[in-house]
């Protein structure tokens, strides 16, 4: 396991400058920044961003995308996140579904979905978690039964982000009964239309009162054969590699950056108190170092490597870091929190306190990540 320092090329720096200019135009100076990729669902912004070529960057041109490198995608993502841009509509389709379709999808599926994803117009959710299955994905109970021309799917998915606004979701389900000792076999992924008959989407109100997560009940939902993603029976392998995509990007450590920036605004100037200065310095230094780790994973991906352990480490350190940042700012601020009143810093901090517990759970809990990483370290 080895992270290597890397710097951005002039072309990569130019891309960054373009994204910054774009954001300066698009986002009013007083906009309330979104915290993380799930912060705000804004189709208009997604389409505008796509028009600049900054959605579907991983997708090859023949499918409407741009075939850009992992580092280019990294640069665009970090600029968007640092600015708190509203990328919630397209982000999951862009980061996760696009690559999955490229890896496992049929030619027909690629032609059908990828251009829309790259245009910032087709949005996906993920259908993994269930009421009784958290990190242990093999225990999913949603079941697909073979019928003429397709599958009938019944079951319930939970924590489905933006299912009430998105178009499709990739459902992990059992296509053959669980066999003793082979619990990862018999799982498959189906692409399900969130507006199909038999699909019921109900909100799961989040701690901060927002509607982002949903329960999606599937009752005898018909899914045609051509909506099977990848191989029947390979769902577990496909999904666990999807989790790897989730692990090390800037979305794993930049979600709460805008809160730090607003803290600096409150303390800007030469007369900053010692303890506020120490908090600013500490987290700026760690942002800088963690960013280097994360960037080095992107560089390794472009070099054709498979830095799975490194990615798990970045996510583990990054998400704990996000929570530590929120807590340290809360202690330093010595204020009462209210999502609705106060300065922008105070309102963002209130939001971050309420939402930060989720960051160490999404995309593999801290405990799962540690196990992945620790095994990798020993080998």
């Amino acid at each position, binding site marked *: 396991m080895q992270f290597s320092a890397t710097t951005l090329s002039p072309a990569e720096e130019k891309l960054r400058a373009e994204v910054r200019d774009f954001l300066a135009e698009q986002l009013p100076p007083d906009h309330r920044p979104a915290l993380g990729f799930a912060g705000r669902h804004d189709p208009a912004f997604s389409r505008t961003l796509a028009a600049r070529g900054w959605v579907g960057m991983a997708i090859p041109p023949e499918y409407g995308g741009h075939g850009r490198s992992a580092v280019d995608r990294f640069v665009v993502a970090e600029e968007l996140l640092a600015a708190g841009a509203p990328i919630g509509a397209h982000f999951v389709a862009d980061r996760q579904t696009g690559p999955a379709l490229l890896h496992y999808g049929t030619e027909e599926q690629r032609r059908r979905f990828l251009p829309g994803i790259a245009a910032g117009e087709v949005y996906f959710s993920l259908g993994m*978690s269930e009421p009784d299955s958290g*990190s242990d994905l093999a225990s999913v109970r949603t079941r697909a039964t073979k019928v003429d021309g397709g599958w009938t799917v019944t079951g319930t998915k939970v*924590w489905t982000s933006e299912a009430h606004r998105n178009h499709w979701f990739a459902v992990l389900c059992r296509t053959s009964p669980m066999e003793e000792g082979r619990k990862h076999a018999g799982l498959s992924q189906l692409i399900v239309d969130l507006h199909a008959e038999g699909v019921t989407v109900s909100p799961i*109100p989040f701690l901060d009162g927002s509607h982002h997560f949903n329960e999606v009940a599937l009752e005898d939902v018909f899914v045609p054969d051509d909506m099977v993603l990848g191989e029947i029976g390979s769902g577990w392998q496909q999904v666990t590699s999807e989790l790897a995509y989730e692990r090390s990007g800037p979305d794993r450590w930049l979600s709460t950056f805008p809160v730090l920036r607003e803290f600096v605004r409150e303390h800007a100037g030469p007369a900053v108190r010692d303890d506020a200065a120490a908090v600013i310095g500490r987290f700026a230094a760690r942002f800088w170092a963690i960013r280097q780790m994360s960037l080095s994973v992107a560089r390794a991906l472009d070099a054709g490597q498979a830095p799975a352990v490194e990615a798990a480490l970045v996510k583990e350190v990054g998400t704990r870091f996000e929570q530590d940042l929120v807590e340290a700012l809360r202690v330093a601020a*010595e204020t009462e929190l*209210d999502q609705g009143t106060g300065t922008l810093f105070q309102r963002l901090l209130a939001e971050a*306190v*309420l939402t930060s517990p989720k960051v160490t759970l999404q995309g593999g809990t801290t405990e799962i990540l540690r196990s992945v990483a620790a095994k990798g370290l020993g080998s």
Partner: protein
Amino acid sequence: MSATDAGTDRAMLTEVATGILRDLCTPEDVVAAEATGWSDRLWGALEASGFPYVSVPEAAGGSGGDVADACALLAVAGRFAAPVPLAEAGLTGGWLLASAGLELPDGPLTVPAGRPGDVAALSGGPGAWRLTGRLTRVPWGGRSTRVALLATGGGTSYVVSAPTAAARVTPGRNLAAEPRDDLAWDDVPLAAGTVAPAPAGVDDLALRLRGALGRAALISGALARVAELTVRYTGEREQFGRPIARFQAVQAHLVTIAEEAQLAGLAVQVAAGNARPEPGFFDVAAAKAVTGEAATVAARASHQAHGAIGMTKEYELGQLTRRLWSWRDEFGSERYWNRQLGRRLAADGPDRLWPRISTGLGET
């Protein structure tokens, strides 16, 4: 409930209160009260049993009992996330009014949170007092009948029972949707019998200590429940074929939560038990600092142990942790009290440090 019971049988007091809250303050009730942060039915039942004014002497119109009784009651309220201003009643507002011989109001009473910039001043003189003031984030400010506050008039400190009906109210809320409203009075005339000189020892610091102790008590109760919920959930929930409580990582969370909950509970018990009758500075500062840190640490561990389910707004855990995240900052955060305490200890010097830590006797 008679004052004698309240004073002599704390266990019965908490048992009766627990009974009422178990019936009228279920997790579903708490969710239902979220829009307003207030449960009329619960307040009515508590009032009917005399709970709001536990620790205010019967002679002053209260229910009797002492500070420790009031804190035991607040621990129960914290445990049930009760959407009513119980901590603002007897322990703080009731004490303030009674100390100056003012009448307890009908309907909810509250107190200022003692925030920077809050002001309250009297003009006009005896018989014709007028109040001008601005208080921020007053708990249940808009929902209460009166605010018990300290105001200065002609260089003297007075206790005032200020009518909220005469105040401009700007609503706000904390992270748990409990009302925290700004109140402003502009040269409002005060009725006879609602102003009286503040006796010696009844000052901003004394009120702040009681406010902080009340929050500490609420936190300790909520933490006890968080610990129970987490033990139960991790014992029932299975992953990879066994209850998650068997995994070392989850055990670490369980132990952390138990430790912090127990530290918080003991800190409140000791600080309240030492009040004779006033809570001591060291005790309260230490109790609020310990419970504030406990709230932070245990909330994080409990969410990590619960996973996603803990973050639905309706699940009981979230109702508790959102309160913990708010209460820890109210009436002074742990950093505030750590600093105040540290200043006092540094001023006292090194040789008084251990005697101060090791005495259980509530010196101030």
